């Protein structure tokens, strides 16, 4: 990995047509502007975004481990129980609102979960970019460790898989602590339609 990066640095100036990662970021920062609630600075990359981009989402095992450890530190696990209300969780899973430049800062955001995941059997309009979560709680149980894993995964998916395509919904401020708890219940509560 390190050797590859080193060779990359040496040959980059020779490959005239191909811009470097830094140049590509500078071009984005020049060509994108703030609008609504989205700031222009969001076009810049943090470590996860940069490394996943340059490695085609396949960083070496060592680098992935380091990134995941760093991302794990961003997760603020609340004290006490992590199971919220699955009924509120369902609304959050259904809603695709929030965080775009046409969304308001004050309306509650959704989790856009159904955009990518199958969840309750009765909802046939689901996306397939992420794995199916149908019967998730039935398969995994609802123990404290599972609750913690689900909370953490929704809060910052990159703590578990550095280049996951899933947004860091808690870390990015998309969902509140209570909303994530409600989603934990939607996935794990035996009464939730996800587990029916």
């Amino acid at each position, binding site marked *: 990995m390190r050797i590859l990066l080193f060779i990359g640095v040496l040959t980059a100036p020779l490959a005239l047509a191909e811009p470097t990662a830094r140049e590509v970021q500078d071009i984005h920062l020049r060509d994108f502007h703030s609008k609504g609630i989205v700031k222009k600075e969001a076009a810049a990359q943090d470590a996860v975004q940069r490394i996943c981009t340059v490695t085609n989402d396949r960083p070496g095992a060592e680098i992935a481990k380091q990134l995941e450890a760093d991302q794990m530190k961003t997760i603020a696990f609340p004290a006490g129980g992590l199971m919220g209300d699955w009924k509120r969780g369902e609304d959050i899973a259904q809603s695709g609102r929030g965080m775009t430049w046409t969304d308001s800062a004050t309306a509650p955001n959704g989790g856009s979960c159904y955009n990518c995941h199958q969840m309750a059997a009765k909802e046939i309009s689901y996306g397939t970019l992420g794995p199916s979560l149908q019967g998730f709680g039935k398969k995994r149980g609802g123990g404290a460790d599972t609750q913690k894993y689900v909370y953490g995964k929704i809060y910052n998916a990159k703590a578990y898989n550095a280049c996951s395509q899933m947004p*860091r919904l808690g870390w990015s401020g998309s969902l509140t602590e209570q909303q994530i708890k409600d989603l934990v219940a939607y996935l794990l509560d035996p009464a939730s339609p996800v587990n029916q």
Partner: protein
Amino acid sequence: MKGLALLLLAFPLWAGAQDAKKEIEKYQQMLGEGSPAELWELEGEALWKKAQGPKNASLEKCDLGGGPGKVAGAYARLPRYFKDTDQVQDLESRLLTCMTALQGRDRAETTKRLFGNADRPSEMEYLVAYVVGQARGHKMAAPVSHPKERASYELGKKVFFYRAGNWDFSCASCHGEQDKRIRMQDLPVLSEPAGAQKAYTTWPAYRVSNSQLKTMQWRINDCYRQMRFPEPEFASESTIALTHYLAVTAKGAPYNGPGTKR
């Protein structure tokens, strides 16, 4: 839509899903026949020929790459390098150049209304409809021979795979894997010829949900909105490069637009 909901109640779930898919296919087929895009093309042709601006000139001498006034098939060979501006331009950016150079209009005025809505349409969307309609049946052949074209293509590829924004997405997050969808919407893989050809040759398109003909610049703009990115500048180097990358990846397929989308 109500009919669809009733169907879903009446049948077992798997049958519901099959029926919903069939209904959507039927709907898309109906959309394809007798497209309102033709009205945009006609309006666009009138605007193309209309004398406007301080120089009271039409766009009929606009050089879209094949020489002044050559419209037929021009869109199939865009984006490309233009000597007079010394840059790679897509259709929209080239139209802005012609409005300034031929009609003497200033940039602020020509860019005031780049995206229209049902109440207030946009001149840009009409003009784009006309020009792309004149390329129907022409094989996609965006050039990559000039050094600036090669650089633009390479940048476009980087832009396509660039992960950023509040949700860490790149274009490839949704358009990088076969047989994926968002909700019920199928997603083409735009980094491969088959997917790029299917998508690129049917854009720009009349979009039923907007009641408007939407341009490629709009398509890219709205993707970035949904990706939770900040807004890209219209006809900026990034968006032209991305368009160029997609156009080159789509090469060889006959242009079949302007299409009709949901």
